[in-house]
């Protein structure tokens, strides 16, 4: 009794200490960067106001729409194709690398290493590196998204397999089923909903990322945003942003519907 009261008191002190620490770090940080908190805060509404005035699409910006739309479709297709290819590759790799379906300990370590390598190089860095070899093209963007997605999906798929498939896998192994029978009859059907859910998430994410990659590789929606922006056609740039937001929301809605049906 006495000790649990002491424990809770201790815990209270710990929490207070941590909050004070974070506050202190922020304070010292803004001193070092000579960041004026009051002025920073005040400039936020001003910045938004400027954004609103300059980037607001006008009636004449509508004429940009067909071109924006065409590039947007191109970008969405890029995102979908890179995700689908990434999913197929990742599934193979995750199967041979997971603890329950994996080949052996060495392969598991190697697969984990590869996945975190691909994942931990920022997308922008991937694009810049790939630009050297593949120049400004859709393919460069495709590869950058592909490699990044592979990094995430391998890791996600391995965890899904380990969490969701180990029990059924054991049951089928015990019936005398062979390795491939177990994979196709137990593991894949069992993990399908979670896997699809991850793929949908990755598509949404890649549409957003494809915009950024497009600025670097000179393709898709990112490219025309860049062009409009640099030629001071802010209303057209604003239109582009609106179109992106619209498509992302539509995609999210669709994938939520799909999720509801499959889960």
């Amino acid at each position, binding site marked *: 009794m006495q000790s649990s009261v002491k424990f809770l008191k201790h815990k209270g002190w710990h929490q207070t200490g941590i909050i004070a620490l974070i506050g202190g770090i922020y304070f010292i940080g803004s001193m070092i960067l000579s960041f004026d908190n009051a002025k920073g805060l005040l400039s936020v509404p001003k910045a938004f106001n400027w954004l609103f005035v300059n980037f607001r699409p006008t009636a004449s910006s509508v004429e940009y729409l067909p071109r924006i739309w065409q590039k947007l479709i191109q970008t969405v297709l890029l995102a979908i194709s890179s995700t689908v290819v990434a999913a197929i590759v990742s599934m193979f790799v995750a199967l041979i690398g997971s603890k329950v379906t994996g080949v052996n300990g060495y392969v598991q370590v190697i697969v984990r290493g590869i996945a975190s390598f691909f994942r931990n190089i920022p997308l922008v860095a991937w694009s810049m590196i790939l630009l050297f070899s593949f120049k400004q093209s859709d393919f460069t963007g495709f590869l950058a998204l592909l490699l990044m997605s592979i990094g995430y999906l391998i890791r996600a798929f391995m965890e899904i397999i380990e969490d969701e498939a180990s029990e059924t896998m054991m049951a089928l192994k*015990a*019936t005398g089923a062979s390795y*491939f029978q177990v994979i196709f009859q137990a593991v894949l059907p069992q993990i399908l909903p979670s896997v699809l859910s991850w793929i949908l998430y990755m598509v949404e994410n890649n549409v957003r990322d494809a915009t950024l990659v497009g600025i670097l590789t000179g393709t898709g929606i990112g490219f025309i945003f860049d062009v409009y922006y640099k030629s001071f056609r802010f209303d057209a740039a604003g239109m582009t942003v609106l179109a992106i937001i619209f498509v992302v929301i539509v995609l999210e809605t669709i994938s939520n519907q799909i999720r509801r049906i499959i889960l």
Partner: protein
Amino acid sequence: MLEVKKLRKSYEKDRPALTDISFNIKPGTFVAIIGPSGAGKTTILRSLNQLIKDDGGQILLDGNDIRTANKMELRKYRRQIGMVFQNYNLVERLTVIENVLHGRLGYKSTIAGVFGRYTQQEKEEAVSLLKKVGLENFALQRCSELSGGQKQRVGIARSLIQHPKVILCDEPIASLDPASAQNVMELLKELTEEYNLICIANLHQINMAKKYADQIIGIRKGQLVFDEDADSLSEDVLRTLYDQEITKELK
């Protein structure tokens, strides 16, 4: 006839999980393995179909040693040994009948199994087994929509379609309510007699063991301390098995 001789296993050096376990079971016998948590019951059961590789001893099924089998032979032994799990271990998204048919995979070519191509005869047998376990109206239902007791009966049907000589049940009723538990135990007992099976169940419920089992094996700290007819299980035995008085369980 299942003969286990001097079965040994340790997961870590110098900490044996099983030491020299030996017992014999005749066909048509329902056996309960009892003992405290961590005694080694699951380890015994999983060694019997080699889901766990033990360290030594013999496991003879009708005179053939399962332990020395190569991969192909092991598949052939495993299909003669059904297994029923505490958490049912079904593919929840698939239908009841698909899960039952999984029990045939050990008999099929890899390709036929991968694509789930079953013969008419296998499908008919699956249906008749579902009838046997009382689920004839659920064949096309997804397993995720069933209750625990129903899932466990699907698991039992899946093991029966293997045409097993042995069925291993690791705490088959631990997740079930008392009524479903009773039903599952009765079903297992019935099937053991009907098909002349060797049915081995790990149980924590001593009253259930006493009521349904023909033979009881008691395990304590990896050692066999009791192996006799269910009728001979006494308070004394339980006291040594569990290190405390467990009298009301016997009633």
